[in-house]
């Protein structure tokens, strides 16, 4: 961690504004993410954090501003294009494929790595089979990494919440992303599960060198994990800097104390 000084910028967000009708969700937000860092976005409920992630991976289209990812600037991008450029994410409310097993969820995360056509797939021979086996091994690496061997073939719908979160992380990792967006990865977890998840996030960052942008409510976790923190409040950018700087920032303190909030 803390290598951002030397590292290049992987993503930069410039003057992004997003509205739905008259509701302004994001107002002139600019920040950047350096390759290899863990970047947190915090703020009270409704601050526009999730919307920011949605803009980054192309799910929402901002009215103004631009996004530069790996040197390529764009205003709009379909989500699957963002995915193919190396952005993966997890969701605030678990968005797993409920009818499928853990393994299949993770395998689906690898769909961009797989190319064989329908014909070979129908035969399940030759390249299709080979590809399936290779990617199975890659998926198994992730299962091993996340320590979810015991639920490999279980349907995800019936798993406990904490494990579902883990599988979702696995699905995102399966894509071998350059930038991983985590939307409240620890929401609703007990402290032991949070500890596990923090460890996985750090390991992902150090083991695979994945850049991580993270939304999280638990301030302790944020301050421990992050290299830098961006603070949003009602769609506006309140502060941006090292965890310690942000912690001391008066605007941030006011926003957190002024807004009734269960975690503040």
């Amino acid at each position, binding site marked *: 961690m803390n290598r951002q000084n030397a590292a290049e910028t992987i993503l930069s967000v410039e003057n992004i504004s997003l509205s739905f009708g008259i509701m302004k969700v994001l107002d002139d937000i600019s920040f950047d993410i350096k390759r290899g860092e863990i970047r947190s976005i915090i703020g009270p409920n409704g601050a526009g954090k*999730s919307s920011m992630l*949605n803009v980054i991976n192309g*799910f929402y289209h901002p009215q103004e501003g631009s996004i530069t990812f790996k040197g390529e600037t764009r205003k709009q991008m379909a989500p699957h294009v963002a995915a193919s450029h190396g952005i993966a994410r997890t969701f*605030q*409310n678990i*968005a797993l494929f409920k009818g499928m097993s853990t393994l299949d969820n993770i395998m689906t995360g690898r769909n961009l790595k797989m190319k064989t056509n329908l014909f070979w797939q129908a035969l399940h021979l030759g390249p299709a089979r080979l590809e399936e086996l290779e990617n199975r091994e890659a998926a198994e690496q992730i299962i091993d990494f996340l320590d979810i061997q015991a639920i490999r073939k279980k349907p995800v719908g019936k798993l406990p919440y904490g494990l579902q979160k883990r599988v979702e992380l696995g699905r995102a990792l399966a894509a071998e992303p350059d930038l991983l967006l985590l*939307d409240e990865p620890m929401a609703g977890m007990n402290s032991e599960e949070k500890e596990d998840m923090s460890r996985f996030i750090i390991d992902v960052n150090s083991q695979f060198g994945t850049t991580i942008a993270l939304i999280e409510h638990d301030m302790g976790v944020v301050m421990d994990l992050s290299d830098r923190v961006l603070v949003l409040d009602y769609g506006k950018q309140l502060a941006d800097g090292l965890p310690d700087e942000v912690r001391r920032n008066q605007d941030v303190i006011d926003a957190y104390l002024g807004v009734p909030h269960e975690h503040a």
Partner: protein
Amino acid sequence: MNMLDFLFFIEVTLSGLMAGVMYSLVALGFVLIFKASGIFNFAQGVMALFAALTLVGLMEKFGFPIWLAIIGTIAVMIALAWLIERVMLRQLVNQEPIILFMATIGLAYVLEGMGDILWGSDVKVLDLGIPQGAWEWLYDKGVYIEKLEMFAAGTAAIMVAFLAVFFQKTRIGRALRAVADDHQAALSVGISLHTIWVIVWSVAGIVALVAGIMWGSKSGVQFSLSLIALKALPVLILGGFTSVPGAIIGGMIIGVGEKLAEVYVGPFVGGAIENWFAYMLALAFLLFRPQGLFGEKIIERV
């Protein structure tokens, strides 16, 4: 375009509007149920057929006078609603919409078979003394409009007005609106979900009866009546699944659209395009406005 052509155009349009009213009536039944329970009731058309068959049956087989037959049919429809809730809906609470949809297809089969067995499957004439024939006043002006159709339009208007009052002014009506938004809220009004379903299916049954009477008077009570249910689907698409005014206006658009298309385009492609035109219209419409005429744009959250 000369005068005669123009009058013909008016005639076609008006006749389309009238047919549209009929579609609207069926669509109305759909909307009521969908609003209150989120169920896409495929059996609405068959309910109209079943209601009409019951009406005719009561009159022919039991010699009921018209008014008694109508009351009797209403009673049957309410009993049916109760039965449907008891036997079917209650067992399917919390199932996915597609499952409920399937169940209503099953219901359609059952009702169709029952209607046929109870009342026979031959085409029946339904004569309630609704005036037939051309409407002289317009006929004199060179436009041919069926009196029946005008009557139907009038009835539909009354029906809609009645429903509007019912929804806006009565306690049950308000509860029904609440349940469409939020099931919990409805419970707080003090009416159980089961009761609400029975009521809404009863109302839909009565709407079906009206639709059945109108269609039956026009072209006899027969199996094809249930197919108008399918015609109501594009109406719903246009109007949106939850909008009463949408159902009315959507019906009009479809009615007029398909008549015009049949008359002006049909001859060039072999005719009978009525069968699919409405769907194509709805489809084209959907591509540009997926939420329907009166629906709101949905912001998806993740």
